[in-house]
Structure formats: C-alpha cells, structure tokens
C-alpha cells in the first residue's frame, strides 16, 4: 500500500529524516509521535507523495514515487485521504460542496453520489452546517469537514496530521472515534500527534502501533504508550 524503504529526506543541506523503513498494511492503525519539529509532517508528506525521498525508496500502491508522473500522484491522492491541522477549504463553496470536492475533481456525478454525501455529512455531525461556508465553521467543525472530505472517495489510507491540534478534548475524542470507526471499516489510519493522552485513549478501543520520530529516525514507541 504505502512502503518506505531506507528513506532519507534532506532539506537546505540538513537531514530531516534518515533510514526510515515502514510498510503500512491494509487495515492497520498507526500513531506517529515525536516532539514538534521532529519531522512528523515531512514523514506524512513522503507517505502521500508530496515529497520525494532524497535517498531510499517510497512506494505508493506499488509504484516508486520517483517514477510517478504528476497525474499518477493525483490518482494516488484519490486513494489517500489527508487531514491537516490547518485544513484549507474553498471558501466560496458550501461545506457540503467542499466535502464533495474530491468527487468533483475525479469527474463523478454528484447527483448519483448525493445519498453517500448526505450520509457522510451526517456521520461527521455537520448536517446542520452543510449549507454554511467554511469561514463560518468552528475549529472542530472544520476538522470534521476535512475528515469527511478526506474519506468521501473511500480511500484505502487516511493520514491525519495533528487533527486534534486546534480542538478541545471533547472534540478530539469525537474525531478519534470517527477515525477508529473508519479503521473498523478496513481503512488504514495513521495519525501524527504529540498528544500522548489521545494515543492512550485510542489504545483502549483499537490495536494501534505507536511510532516515534527521534533523532531523525523512526522507532517503535515504548510500552508506556
């Protein structure tokens, strides 16, 4: 699915990540932790093809990132849902339209997908806000809209970069429950977070593998997590 083999990434002459090897198995649940600036976002970008490794091999659905054309990357992104801490929307379109955006760009007929869209909007608890515009949403609502947008194409993998960074504990638990639910539907989930409490609360409900980036390398986190 997504496979990193001895991957290193350098920027501006300095190594950000080195000797990273990982294979995301279908249906697995991962947490990626580490201090701010450790390289969690860079790692996720390598996973969804936004960055090309300086050395080593990153394979997205069996294809080496270096051999992928721009259209191949676009196609891969339809199979990888990404949720950012600072999620961006098209402010001139309603929340429902923003959630449906991946369907639009892939040329799907929105009318035939209307039932799925409605169900998804209800699932993330935004039925009442579907006609609102992104600037009118709270931080938690934005994160849930971003999650709905990330999963509307029914991707194989969902990567979330600090999805609970801007929301309170209650909302972060709500988002976590949605991600666990997706994992139970067979989706591969990876959440980058420095919130250890979130990880502990998740491990009660799901068998998650906790990875840590330290000293530019990926390690399996200790049993305390």
């Amino acid at each position, binding site marked *: 699915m997504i496979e990193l083999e001895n991957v290193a990434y350098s920027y501006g002459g300095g190594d950000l990540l080195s000797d990273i090897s990982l294979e995301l198995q279908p249906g697995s649940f991962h947490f990626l932790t580490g201090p701010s600036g450790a390289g969690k976002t860079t790692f996720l*970008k390598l996973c969804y*093809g*936004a*960055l090309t490794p300086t050395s080593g091999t990153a394979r997205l659905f069996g294809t080496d990132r270096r051999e992928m054309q*721009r*259209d191949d*990357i*676009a*196609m891969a*992104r*339809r199979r990888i849902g*990404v949720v950012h801490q600072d999620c*961006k*929307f*098209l*402010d*001139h*379109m309603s929340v429902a*339209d923003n959630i449906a*955006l*991946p369907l*639009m*760009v*892939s*040329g799907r007929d*929105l009318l035939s997908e209307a039932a799925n869209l409605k169900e998804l909007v209800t699932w993330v608890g935004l039925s009442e806000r579907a006609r609102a515009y992104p600037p009118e949403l709270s931080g938690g609502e934005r994160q849930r809209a971003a999650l709905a*947008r990330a999963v509307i*194409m029914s991707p194989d993998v969902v990567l979330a970069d600090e999805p609970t960074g801007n929301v309170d504990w209650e909302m972060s638990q709500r988002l976590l429950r949605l991600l666990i639910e997706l994992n139970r539907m067979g989706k591969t989930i990876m959440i980058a977070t420095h919130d250890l409490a979130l990880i502990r609360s998740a491990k009660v409900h799901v068998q998650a593998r906790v990875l840590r980036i330290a000293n530019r390398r990926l390690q399996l986190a200790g049993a305390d997590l």
Partner: protein
Amino acid sequence: MLVGDTQADRVVPPTGFTATLTLFSAAAMAFLAVFALALSLATGRLADRWGDELARSATVRISAPEGQLAAQTQAALKVLQTTTGVARARALDSDEQRALLEPWFGPDLPVDMLPIPQLIEVIEEGPGFDAQGLRLRLAAEVPGAVLDDHTRWRRPLVNAASRLRLLGWVSLVLIGATTAAIITLAANAALAANAQVIGVLRQVGARDAYIVRAFVRRFTLRALAGAGAGMVLGCLAILLLPAAQDEGGFLTGLGFRGLSWIWPLVVPPLAACVAFWATGAAARRMLKDLP
C-alpha cells in the same frame, strides 16, 4: 471550451477582485484597441487620399489678357485632350473658382470682376502623362499656360502620409502588445490570488489538466466578456465623435467606414486568445511548484 464543465466551473471563485481585475483590464484595453484601430484606419485613409488621389490630378493655370483668356483656355484643353495619359480635362467655372477663393476672401466674391487666372483640372489615367513633354507643348501652343502637376508640394505630403500610416500601425501593434501584457499580468495576479484554491484542488487529487482547464475557461470567458464590453463602449465613443467629412480635418475623419466596422469585432476574440494562452501558462507555472 464553450460548453464547459459545470462542476469544474464551480471550483474557481466567481467573484472577488481577480474577477473585477480581469474584466476591467480586458475592457479598458479593448476600448483603447478600438481607438488604435480607428486611428490606424483613419491614417490609412488619409495617406491614400494624400498619396493616391493627389497623384492622379494636375492643374493648368492660364494667365492671359482678358480678350485672350477664353481662346487660350480652349487651346489648352485641345492640347490636353490629345495628350496621352490624360483621362479628362475641364476648365473650372466661376462658381468653382469662387469656392476655391472663399476661404481667403469670403463668400460672394465677384470673380468676374477680378483678373483671376483660369484653372483647368486635369485627371490622369494609367501611368499618367509626361509632365515635361506637356509643359513644352503648352509653352509652344498656349503661352499663358503653366502646368502644376503638384509634385513640388505633393511629395512632402505623401511622405508625411506614409509616416502617419506607419504611426497608425505602430500604435495598433503597441496597444495590441500592451493589451496582451495587461491581460497576462491580470491572469498572473488572479492565479496568484487563487493559489490556495489550486493547492486544495491538487491536494484532493485534481489532475493538472483539470485545474488548468477550470481556470483557463473562467479567465478566458471573463476576458472575452470584458473585451466585448470595452469594444462596444469604444465603438459607441467612436460613433459619438463628430461625423467624418471629406473636406474635414484629420480628427473628424477618425472612425470606421463601411466594412471596416468589422475590425473592432476582432478585438474580443483576440483578447480571449491572449487570456487563454496567458492563464494556461500561468497556471502550469504555478502547478509546477506544487507537489
């Protein structure tokens, strides 16, 4: 391009300063382009009038004592009728002579009472007549006749007209190039202002071609609409100028005549072509920097 993709159309913000910028710049430049076209065509007409029409005519002036004026006029006409290259020749009547002098002496000039020379208008045909040969014949047969083939004062006018025609075309090219540059800058500014939209689209799996198509179509149509409005306003402004008259000066002749009204219609499609090319290039350049 014309039918479009309604879903793709929605991803480009429909309003905002980028829409106004494109519309306004296209309209303003189309308005100016219409004037440049009018100027160019007017200078062309002026050059034709000065260069061509004057080259086809000459004047014979007969100065003779009062009793011999009519006889010498008839003799000169006879000479002219037998001269190769002369299409026709006719003596101006007193009304025409009065009209010629009217700008200097005012109306109701008693031409018959004044010792004014008789003028004969000579219209050339084909390659024209041999001016030197005609002068010699007139000198031999009509002693009071002087041939003025306009060469002396026509040459600087023709030169000036040619320069004016060149100036008109240079203006047209410059305004066309400026139109292209302004529309290109507007497209770049609009694309830069929509960088977040492009980033989001790329993030959710849009292909480059989809993004380029959506923006190119929107900006091309905006440029077409803006240039269309500018062209209409330009044509209206041209129509409101004082009517062109043959005897009028240069400014009163600025405008379109007959089929030349078709030329302004070319401006909006050209502006749209420029926007099509500029937006496509700008979008591709911006996408190249996005992973």
